[in-house]
């Protein structure tokens, strides 16, 4: 942290090192993009919250002019209100007039006048904030502006080549791992143009049905609306566009027209969210994509992990069909091995590994032996449940024997199931167990209720409790007790939080004499998962992280082996769907250039995206102006507990039209534009 700056007004900081030697310059407390890329320094950064100069050389008048010009240029978000549309153009025309030496002092007054009306009345934040750094510069560099006007001369770099790189963002977009243009898809709902809404989503998120249902929505934690009342229900508004497309049987609305074939081939390992996303965006770029999937069905964990009642398979299949619509070839029941990988490397121009993390980690308790009947990994348990519930694939005789199941599907009638976890996977296990008619379902969690809610969602926890899951907090398994390799009971240790005398996080300490025992027929470890990377040829010597996932630099997703890329859980470790989508989208972009040029590169848009993420777009302390508060967040109707707990019907009924419009109207369209001068 800390950036050396010459001058800065960024986010309320005022640093003025004019007249000081560079070594005496005071530093900014913000992580500002003083270095644009490894090969390029930047001279200035200007955006919605102020301006920072990294060099004395900057032509501030030209900088202000270019910022206004970029606002015009990048005004996809604009054109929709009178002050923004004309005001922005007038800002630019007047600034350019001054910069080329034809300005007058009345122009400065008009600039201020237009700025004020833009700031007070524009439709989106972009129109409201564009004047801010311009006014900053006019105030603090008044002399520079005044001199040009008095002397009727051009600004110092008016005719020289300076490169300016701009990017439009929003706090929610910035917080989204795949950078979905959230204000645009919400605007599509508000304007009752659901096709536009969907197209905006698919611009960076092909799984619109899925992430309109089961995304943990980190965007909502960065929603500026929470500074005023409550965050927008961003995730749920997403499904409206995709439901419209599906319900009306429309042809798939892709964000851009698919490019003609470029004669390059890429193979993708795994058809989960990361694999599908990578395939989708590469196919849009005209690449021939082939996907290998080990399971008999497509879709990875969303298909075989996430239960039907949260993510109806019919809807997920529509997301998958959108990928197929671009001509991607899929092979199911096709696990790959090292021999195949060696062949792939010869045959294809690049490989994207998106094989996920499908090994359930151990609980780490006494007598934890895989051969005990009743000990059943969460991933495998959910596979079996979902393959039957969604696809009608029955248990084999061997599987029935192994898990002591009488029916062709996971039927837990009369059985007690305990699950160890605390994340989304464990929630899926216990709620599926309820639907499998278990007599008793217990969730064991080492920490407290608050933490489990933070790690999942309030709705998820609340719905599980309603359905009859018994939560035991501060509890962990000490020992599995069996009789002839058949699980009988679990010895439970309990814990308590002890305040840390040195301050900091309280410690979890085992309670003496707190042990107890519960009877259980099944114990499901859902602690975490690890990646099974045995299919990668040893001699490739792919570097791994300390978590035994594939190592990349987290920006271009190339592995230590050229031409081999990795994205999703296989790279990051078990994480969210949207994280996998975001990584794969970036990887697809990098690969689409790599297959043409052999080089690894990022676009300016991507470089800026990374800079802004580091800098942080959302400012939770910022007061909101121009919006009426106390407007309640809409909550969609859910199936009642008795209506849902014995079946797989989708629990969330989604917004009614009235609710959707009302919720979309709360969105403040917090678009921002920022620009770097290099």
């Amino acid at each position: 942290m800390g950036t050396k700056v010459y001058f800065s007004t960024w986010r309320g900081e005022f640093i003025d090192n004019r007249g000081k030697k560079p070594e005496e310059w005071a530093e900014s407390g913000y992580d500002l993009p003083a270095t644009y890329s490894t090969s390029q320094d930047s001279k200035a950064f200007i955006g919605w919250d102020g301006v920072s100069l990294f060099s004395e050389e900057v032509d501030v008048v030209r900088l202000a002019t270019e910022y206004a010009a970029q606002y015009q240029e990048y005004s996809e978000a604009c054109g929709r209100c009178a002050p923004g549309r004309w005001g922005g153009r007038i800002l630019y025309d007047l600034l350019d007039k001054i910069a080329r030496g034809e300005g007058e002092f009345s122009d400065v007054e008009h600039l201020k006048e237009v700025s004020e009306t833009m700031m007070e009345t524009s439709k989106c934040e972009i129109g409201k904030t564009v004047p801010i750094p311009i006014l900053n510069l006019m105030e603090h560099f008044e002399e520079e502006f005044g001199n040009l006007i008095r002397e009727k001369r051009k600004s110092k770099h008016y005719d020289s080549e300076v490169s300016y790189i701009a990017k439009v963002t929003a706090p929610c977009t910035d917080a989204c791992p795949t950078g979905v243009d959230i204000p645009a898809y919400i605007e599509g709902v508000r304007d009752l143009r659901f096709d536009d809404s969907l197209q905006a989503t698919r611009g960076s998120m092909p799984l619109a049905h899925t992430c309109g249902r089961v995304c943990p929505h980190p965007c909502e934690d960065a929603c500026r609306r929470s500074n005023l009342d409550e965050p927008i229900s961003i995730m749920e508004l997403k499904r409206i566009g995709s439901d419209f497309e599906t319900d009306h049987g429309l042809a798939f609305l892709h964000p851009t027209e698919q490019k003609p074939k470029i004669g390059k081939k890429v193979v993708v390992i795994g058809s989960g969210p990361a694999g599908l996303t990578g395939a989708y965006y590469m196919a849009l770029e005209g690449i021939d994509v082939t996907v290998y999937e080990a399971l008999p069905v497509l879709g990875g964990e969303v298909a075989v992990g996430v239960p039907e009642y949260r993510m109806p398979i019919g809807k997920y299949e529509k997301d998958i069909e959108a990928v197929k619509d671009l001509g991607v070839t899929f092979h199911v029941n096709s696990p790959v091995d090292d021999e195949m990988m060696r062949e792939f490397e010869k045959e294809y121009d690049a490989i994207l590994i998106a094989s996920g993390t499908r090994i359930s980690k151990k609980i780490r308790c006494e007598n934890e032996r895989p051969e005990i009947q009743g000990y059943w990994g969460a991933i495998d348990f959910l596979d079996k449940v979902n393959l039957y519930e969604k696809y009608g694939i029955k248990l084999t005789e061997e599987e029935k024997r192994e898990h002591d199941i009488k029916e062709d599907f996971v039927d837990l009638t009369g059985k007690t199931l305990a699950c160890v976890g605390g994340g989304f996977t464990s929630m899926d296990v216990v709620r599926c167990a309820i639907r499998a008619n278990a007599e008793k379902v217990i969730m064991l969690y080492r920490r407290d209720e608050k933490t489990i809610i933070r790690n999942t969602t309030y709705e998820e926890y609340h719905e599980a409790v309603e359905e009859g899951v018994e939560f035991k907090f501060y509890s962990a398994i000490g020992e599995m007790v069996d009789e002839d390799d058949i699980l009988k009971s679990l010895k439970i240790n309990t814990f308590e939080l002890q305040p840390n005398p040195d301050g900091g996080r309280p410690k979890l300490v085992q309670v003496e004499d707190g042990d107890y025992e519960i009877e259980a027929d099944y114990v499901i470890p859902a602690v975490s998962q690890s990646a099974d990377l045995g299919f990668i040829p040893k001699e490739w010597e792919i570097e791994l992280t300390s978590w035994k996932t594939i190592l990349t630099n987290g920006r271009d997703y190339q592995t230590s082996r050229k031409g081999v890329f990795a994205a999703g859980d296989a790279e990051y470790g078990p994480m969210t769907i949207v994280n996998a989508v975001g990584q794969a989208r970036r990887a697809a972009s990098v690969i689409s250039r790599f297959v043409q040029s052999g080089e690894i590169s990022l676009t300016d848009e991507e470089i800026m995206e990374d800079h802004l993420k580091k800098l942080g777009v959302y400012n939770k302390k910022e007061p909101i102006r121009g919006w009426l508060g106390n407007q309640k967040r809409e909550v969609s109707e859910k199936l009642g507990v008795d209506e849902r707990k014995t079946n797989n019907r989708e629990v969330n009924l989604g917004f009614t039209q009235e609710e959707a419009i009302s919720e979309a109207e709360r969105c403040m369209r917090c678009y921002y534009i920022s620009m770097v001068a290099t």
Partner: protein
Amino acid sequence: MYEMLLYLDGGNMINFKINGKDVVAQKGETILQVARKEGIYIPTMCYLEKTTPIGSCRLCVVEVEGYDAPILSCQSKPTDGIEVQTDSDELFKHRKNIMELYNVNHPLECGVCDKSGACDLQNKTLEFGLSCQSFTAKEQNRPKKDWGRIQYDESLCILCEKCVSTCNEAVGDDAIELHFGGYSSSIVPKGSETLDCTYCGECISVCPVGALISKDFKYTANAWELQKIPASCSHCSAGCEISYEVKHTSTEDQTQKIYRVTNDYEENTVCGAGRFGFDFGNSETKGDFSEAVEKLRNAKSIVFNSNITNEEAKILSEVSKKTGAKLVNREALNFQNFLKAFAVNAGESLYNGTLEDVADSNQVVVIGTKISTDNPAVRYALTQAFKRNRAFISYLHPVYDSLLQNTIRQFINYEVGTEEGVVALLVDTILENSELDLDIGYLSGETNVGEEELEQIAKISKRATKKTLVVGADLIAHPKAENIAKFLGLVQRTALWKVLIVPPETNSLGVAEICELSDEAVSPSVGYNMKADFVISALGGDFSVPALNQQEGTFVNLNREVVKTHVAVPFEGRNLNELANKVLGSDVENTIDYTKELFGTHFDDLEIFHLETEITSPKAEVSEVEDLPTFDGTLIYLSNPHLQFSPFTEKAISSEAPLLGSEQFAVAGKLSDGDEVEFEILGEKFRRKFQIDRNLRGVIALNPIFDMGLSAYSLSSNYRFQKAKIEKVK
């Protein structure tokens, strides 16, 4: 109990203040809506009541105490206790600045602009006292766009987006959109190079400036010279409220002429036939008056259609009573019989649904009509039901209508001719605990309506709170109409569903209520705008009478409302009343003197009112659905294109009339696009150009009838699917 009280005590009411005045908002109402209700003025340039708030002009910003920046009133819902100020120096300054921005580079061509005198930009510029322009921006090249009947002038456009919202939310064409691009933003056709729409012209209607105009109207008149004649559109049973805008033809010719049709776009949405098809007045004065009187006196039958006012229908009834002539109007008779049969089980004489019911519904089932062209007003109501309420709309018809794809959730294609079976299945589906004894398997097989499709309707019906069933002309002219109507009567009786039976012609309902009708004409016959031995008509014939825009009178529209129309263009000859006076030996001065006889009020004092339904004791009698017919061979559906309804619209608007066939139809008939073909339907010979319509599904072709002169009316009184042998013309 406390919570309960809170709820009753205005859980849905918000109390707040505007300019110090205590006001109340209903849940969901915006500050602007409350202000308007209270008569408090807030300026707007982009606000439309009939769409969701657009929020592009920003003029409606207001101040709220405790908030340091202005709040947009069109979109903000008030909260309890807030204090709103609609005017202040600060607000005035911003609004004035916005108006100044609107005027940047707006061409100073008010002298020739069609909108001048009725222009929101002019009005608001004056209102804010803009006398000089302090902002400048570089001018850009903005060529005019030719969009068929519509001209778009980008340089005049203020990008308020009213046109875009209306087209999407009220009409449903979704044919235009805003092309984003800051200063160079413009309105563009959506997804195509040029405008591809149904040409309702509603975009022209809502345009606050002269950016979207009717090409025909361009440069013909100034807004302030035109006189508005209130009227009801005579082209279909929606009977939309319109104004004929008239002035003299030229300085030499002082004859009054219609220059355009306008509508109050907040009140209704008018289709292209209504807006552009106004020039159908009769300028001929053919025939001998006493001959016409004699023919009428001696006629054994008087043949007429329902494109007629109630008063004229009444006059014909009086003549018939006096002379014993039979009144023949098969279309209206079908409708009358349909209503009669419907009433048996409905327990009342009339259907109970309206356009508003359709628009407010969250479930609608449409059956037996190509509604987008049969009755555009119903289609607009469907659009609104979907857009506002995301209504689940099921559309049951043998012909797929791609225009409705975005609106309709479920297309159910049934076999031609099996309507009775389809209705039976449908009614069985939507009646909870139906006691109908149906052979579901047989009906489902013959009609091709799947049980799952019906189950989906039933499932939605369980949750839907406002439901409407829309019934169209295919069922009314059906050989099994009586039993079909009886089935439908059961639906209205449940009170859970509204039923809207769309009258096939403009005034079918009025005629059905007024006249005693019979089926077959006998000679000597007189036709009133119909073919007969002697033809009295506003479209040629033996004796000329005025057209409907040359007459005063009333219609009964599909909402069962009695609506009025007035004289827009003069007619030099004699009218039906004058003929009838001779036959009846009476001396009724004006046609509208019959209004009082019909409705008890003099025409001038008549306000729009609903026909009353007669309550009877409901029965539950339906006949068993017997063997359903099968139609094999080449099938043709009688259906007009957009903008066309009848020989009157044809007179006013020229459009092509091809036989539109699906690709399968072309293959089956060995036809190619552009072939000349001949065929005969119901004794009428057609010669048409064949065109392939790739949006049609199944072996079907659509054949227009609007260009068939007076025969169009007799054709439209039949079941609309007909077999025909298509011959290629060598």
